[in-house]
């Protein structure tokens, strides 16, 4: 029988990291080794994660495709499925369908400087491509990461932030919103756009990858433009509610563009051509 496209892989939770009080990262291991063998994905793609009995929820694969033994996902407790996911323990089963969607064009970026800008829970969809390019470090020139969250407690991947900031080949800027700092906070204090403006990375031969809440995007875009970035050199991801993941259920389209098929990765140039339906 041909494949049931709605049938998820069964995954075992290998480990759980509590990133913040309401954000968790799961490491998921294929229960069936054959599935693991067959499975491959690229940076930027997403999947449908399910708790049987509660339903499915969409988020990006947060681990790098260069690490083949597992996939990781990071989610915030928000609705029915993510609440159910958060109640699971190591060893429990979840479902995973994917990978779906397009990818960050990292091959095209080879030989360029990369500027990653993320806010809050938007680092996970970017983490995949960050690790992907770090693992292929020799192909890229300078890598700069600007990451901000409301408070120190809201920063995700604290271990990795530390690791990245300690690497000599990555310029890491972490910031928290004013008032969100703790006494021993050593990073920047200020909103992402301001911090970015202060750091003023060169737009010369540089690709900017931007993910964050709409308000952050809104204020960061002018800064990027001021720094000289062109629309086609800025990438971001869109999120819309979706059910199927392959362009049938009719939810995620922005105009005629399916976020699940043509996205989630879009250049800012593409975004400008889309109607405002996201």
């Amino acid at each position, binding site marked *: 029988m041909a494949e*049931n*496209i709605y049938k998820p892989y069964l995954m075992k939770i290998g480990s759980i990291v509590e990133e913040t009080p309401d954000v968790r990262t799961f490491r998921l291991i294929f229960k069936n080794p054959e599935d693991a063998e067959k499975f491959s994905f690229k940076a930027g793609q997403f999947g449908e994660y399910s708790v049987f009995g509660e339903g499915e929820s969409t988020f990006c694969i947060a681990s790098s495709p260069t690490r083949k033994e597992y996939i990781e996902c990071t989610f915030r407790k928000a609705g029915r499925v993510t609440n159910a996911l958060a109640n699971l323990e190591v060893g429990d089963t979840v479902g995973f369908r994917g990978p779906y969607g397009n990818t960050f064009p990292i091959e095209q970026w080879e030989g360029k400087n990369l500027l990653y800008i993320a806010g809050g829970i938007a680092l996970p969809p970017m983490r995949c491509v960050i690790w992907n390019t770090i693992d292929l470090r020799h192909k890229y020139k300078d890598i700069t990461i600007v990451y901000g969250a409301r408070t120190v407690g809201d920063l995700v991947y604290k271990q990795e932030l530390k690791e990245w900031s300690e690497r000599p080949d990555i310029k890491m800027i972490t910031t928290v919103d004013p008032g969100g700092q703790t006494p021993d906070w050593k990073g920047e204090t200020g909103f992402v756009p301001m911090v970015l403006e202060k750091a003023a990375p060169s737009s010369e031969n540089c690709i900017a990858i931007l993910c964050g809440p709409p308000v952050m995007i809104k204020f960061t875009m002018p800064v990027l433009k001021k720094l000289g970035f062109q629309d086609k050199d800025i990438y971001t991801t869109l999120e*819309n*509610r979706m059910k199927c993941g392959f362009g049938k259920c*009719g939810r995620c*389209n922005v*105009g005629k563009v399916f976020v699940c098929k043509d996205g989630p990765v879009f250049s800012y140039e593409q975004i400008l051509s889309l109607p405002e339906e996201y």
Partner: protein
Amino acid sequence: METIRKLIRKQSLEKLYNNLAANRKVYAPVIAADKKAEYKYNPGFADVTFDHIRSTLSVKNIVFPKVENLFFYENSKTESTITDIDLDKIPEVVLWGAHPCDNAAFDTLRSIFCWDTKDEFFSRRLEKLTVIGLGCHSSDEYCFCTSVGLSPSSSRGSDILLTKLQTGDYQAEILTAKGNEIVSSFPDLFEPLTDEKVDITEVKQKFSHKQVTEKLAGAFEHEFWIANSLRCIGCGACAYVCPTCACFDIQDETKGKNGKRYRSWDSCGFGLFTLHTSGHNPRHVQSQRWRQRIMHKFSYMPDRNESLGCVGCGRCSSGCPVDMNIAEQLEALQNI
């Protein structure tokens, strides 16, 4: 295959129907208690109507049931197992006496369910379906098939198309191998066609769908949408009666340890259809949802699925509680 035309007499139709209904599921229209047409499985031939204009619901449920199980699961504390649906159990169905608009809709649905990735549930059901269509000898003011590239005698989607002759007998156009199989199983019932005067209704063309598609390309921000959707109350009636609407929801339902994941009809007209968990809703007012409905059918689908998302059956308009008349709106859109 090349189309073959034959004659089938009225009394032979009954024999054909009874023979088919004897050992398979035949889905045929009858007149219900409320005087409206509805499709039923294997009704008696005497109850089958040949004169209905449109049934309240379309016949898309044969290939896209209002609830379709995707798989079953069983949960223990830490384990879950999945059991597949046995798609081989999908029964063979003969759709009897459905009109050209409804039959053409199967093609449209295929363009949604089988673009890019193939939906096995849909396509297996479609494989098991044989369509004996019936050309329309009556129509009403809601019909607009001629405006969307079809006609009361279109054969698209039919395996056999029956058309009433002025003599009261029927012409049978045998269009596909599936149709031919039926005809060759009952050779005595089909005769050579002599008289070709058919009784076909006329449906006036109301707009040009090509022009509508062209206009829509630049009409996303047009004030038309707000002005013409104020009276829409945001129910899902139009989508649910539509033969080509295919938006769906996926849900889980568990009793004890066992449960199933299923998909069920959904409608882009519902306010919460696109609502994010964060509370953000990309289509937060009805005008945006109405625009999505029209745009999807007449702009996005021609662009992405190479098919028009409308067959002109008029159900959405006749079923609408507030007379959101789609043909009227498209006519207006053509001229904006």
